């Protein structure tokens, strides 16, 4: 990520140098995922779009934009227009603010009349969302309403039927009701954002009167960063791992020198409290599916002693991997990434020592490093960065740490067997490989958008597109869950094939790297061929599109026994398999033997 765009950034500097930043990002931008975004504005959106593009490109997304004419958000959404229709947005962002509220309550207006205004105002919005969903079936991001800059009634603007802040608050609640009951719809919380920024600074009235910006121009980078977090999360570009130092990061003092009783952690002292609060904040990330790892220069036994402190919130079994040794930290991070089968770019590194941070930055630039001086700042930095922005949570997220820990046990078990085949048999693996079930669509979409390595086409889907594919008879779909004696790995593989007469074209074939070398890919192939035979399909056509990250599957179709049909200069290859006379390849996994 560009240092200019990393937190804590200088928003004015980003505005001032945005042309140069865009040039730099475009120069090194190959491999970015394209995304079509329609921005429907109720006020000026020009710089919002430019800065949003910077943050998205910085995180590997190459957006193209449709921008509504000034304040034409409603008619664009409800009636559409040719340009927007042809653009076919994959994501619509509705940039409305309190300035777009058409009917505000009057002083002393009676409660019923205000309630009617509220309903009419809300219905204008719901009508837009319905129209967009029906026409494009795409993700919608909608600003909520920020507090106004003045309060004519003072504190009476709330808790009073005709109070304007009261009105805005009730309107926001209606937006949230809709968000709770509709998928692919996300609120961009500018009410929080403007408060955190400072409402008086946010409402720079000159910028409204001069340029019709609904916020200070200086606040645009904050706004765009926050919006980019939602987009990145929807596109599966969240970080996955928090790699944490120990001494003076997770507790005060040095465990090797001070011993368990000497370090600051727990509610006894103010310093201990602030470290405890950080530990609690970090630990809560496990519920989001974020993996925690330790990366500390320490003797292993000392590290465990610190983590076993009776007043600590974090304990050794909260971590998917503990590296406490005297190696360079960036080497340990690399090693951790390898063991967890993740890319270094999924990591956020947290260390109180600026020198260690700098070394990791230079030696392993893919890893994101945050800056802070004390535990309170560390919480704030992590919170503001939004690396783990939540747009959907699947049951697998909360269990992810457990799955990775089970993997460590499997690795230990592997060493006891004479052959790898014997080891696989010992795992007592069972796979459930079936068509998409509606309840699994969020997880399938999430896995599809974040799998980079074992992914043949790197095709991305929004949840709406995935739902559409799931409902379409023109496809054969499979998602696979793998269970073994150490635990349930959850849904780990997805295949989507498009029917075309007697052929099936593989649009998508991917698998989570946490089940590499477990025969799961063969189990998926066995089931796919079975489904094809049932559907009278004679041949399967596979495609491999190389990216910087998916080299590991360049030869997958060859291993599957496909014959190569063609290859182009860019390394894209096409493969073919006849479904007749196919012999199932799986030996160690029992497929679809469970009850349901």
């Amino acid at each position, binding site marked *: 990520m560009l240092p200019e765009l990393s937190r804590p950034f200088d928003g004015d500097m980003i*505005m001032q*140098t945005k*042309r*140069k930043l865009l*040039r730099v990002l475009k120069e090194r931008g190959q491999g970015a995922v394209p995304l079509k975004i329609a921005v429907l504005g109720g006020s000026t959106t*020009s710089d919002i779009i430019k800065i949003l593009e910077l943050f998205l490109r910085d995180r590997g997304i190459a957006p193209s934009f449709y921008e509504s004419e000034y304040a034409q958000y409603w008619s664009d959404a409800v009636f559409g227009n040719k340009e927007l229709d042809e653009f076919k947005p994959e994501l619509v962002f509705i940039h409305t603010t309190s300035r777009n509220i058409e009917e505000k309550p009057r002083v002393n207006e009676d409660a019923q009349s205000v309630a009617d205004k509220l309903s009419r105002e809300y219905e204008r919005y719901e009508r837009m969302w319905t129209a967009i969903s029906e026409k494009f079936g795409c993700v919608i991001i909608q600003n909520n309403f920020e507090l106004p800059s003045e309060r004519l009634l003072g504190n009476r603007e709330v808790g009073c039927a005709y109070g304007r802040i009261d009105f805005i608050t009730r309107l926001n609640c209606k937006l949230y009701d809709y968000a709770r009951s509709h998928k692919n719809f996300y609120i961009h919380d500018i009410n929080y954002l403007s408060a955190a920024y400072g409402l008086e600074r946010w409402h720079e009235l*000159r910028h409204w009167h001069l*340029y019709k*910006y609904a916020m200070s*121009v200086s606040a645009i980078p904050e706004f765009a960063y926050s919006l980019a977090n939602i987009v990145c999360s929807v596109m599966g570009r969240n970080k996955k791992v928090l790699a944490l130092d120990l001494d003076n990061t997770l507790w005060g003092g040095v465990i090797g020198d001070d011993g368990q009783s000497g370090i600051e952690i727990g509610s006894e002292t103010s310093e201990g409290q602030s470290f405890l609060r950080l530990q609690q904040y970090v630990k809560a990330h496990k519920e989001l599916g974020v993996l925690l790892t330790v990366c500390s220069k320490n003797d292993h036994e000392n590290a465990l002693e610190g983590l076993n402190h009776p007043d600590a919130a974090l304990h050794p079994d909260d971590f998917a991997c503990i590296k406490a040794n005297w190696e360079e930290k960036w080497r340990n991070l690399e090693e951790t990434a390898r063991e967890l089968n993740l890319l270094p770019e999924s990591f956020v590194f947290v260390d109180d020592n600026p020198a260690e941070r700098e070394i990791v930055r230079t030696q392993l630039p893919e890893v994101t490093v945050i800056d802070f001086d004390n535990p309170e700042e560390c919480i704030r930095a992590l919170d503001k960065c939004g690396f783990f922005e939540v747009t959907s949570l699947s049951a697998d997220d909360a269990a992810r740490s457990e799955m990775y820990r089970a993997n460590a046990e499997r690795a230990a078990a592997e060493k006891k067997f004479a052959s790898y085949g014997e080891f696989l048999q010992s795992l007592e693996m069972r796979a459930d490989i079936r068509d998409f079930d509606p309840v699994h669509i969020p997880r399938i979409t999430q896995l599809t958008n974040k799998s980079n390595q074992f992914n043949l086409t790197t095709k991305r889907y929004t949840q709406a597109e995935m739902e559409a594919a799931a409902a379409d008879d023109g496809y054969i779909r499979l998602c696979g869950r793998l269970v073994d004696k150490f635990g349930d790995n959850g849904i780990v593989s997805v295949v989507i094939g498009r029917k075309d007469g007697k052929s099936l074209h593989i649009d998508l074939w991917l698998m989570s790297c946490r089940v590499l070398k477990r025969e799961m890919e063969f189990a998926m192939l066995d089931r796919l061929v079975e489904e094809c035979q049932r559907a009278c399909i004679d041949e399967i056509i596979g495609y491999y599109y190389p990216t910087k990250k998916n080299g590991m599957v360049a030869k997958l179709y060859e291993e599957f026994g496909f014959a190569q049909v063609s290859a182009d200069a860019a390394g894209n290859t096409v493969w073919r398999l006849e479904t007749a006379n196919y012999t199932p390849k799986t030996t160690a996994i029992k497929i679809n033997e469970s009850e349901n």
Partner: protein
Amino acid sequence: MDRETVKSRLTKVFRDVFDDDDIELKDGTTADDIEAWDSLEHITLISAVEKEFKMRFTMKEVSGMKNVGEMINIVAERAKK
């Protein structure tokens, strides 16, 4: 603040905003002389100048400035540092 100091610091701001290190400012320079200088970029430019000189233009000044020379005059008179 003297006009020459203002002009040289202003040049740096213009070069940043328009991402063009060849820009040389003269009193008579207008938006017509710099290709990327349109009404939208004018906003960025004004904000960047305000930040550089820790001052604020009035709304009348923002919409009324005819060329760089007028901008220098306002800044020279009001810049805080």
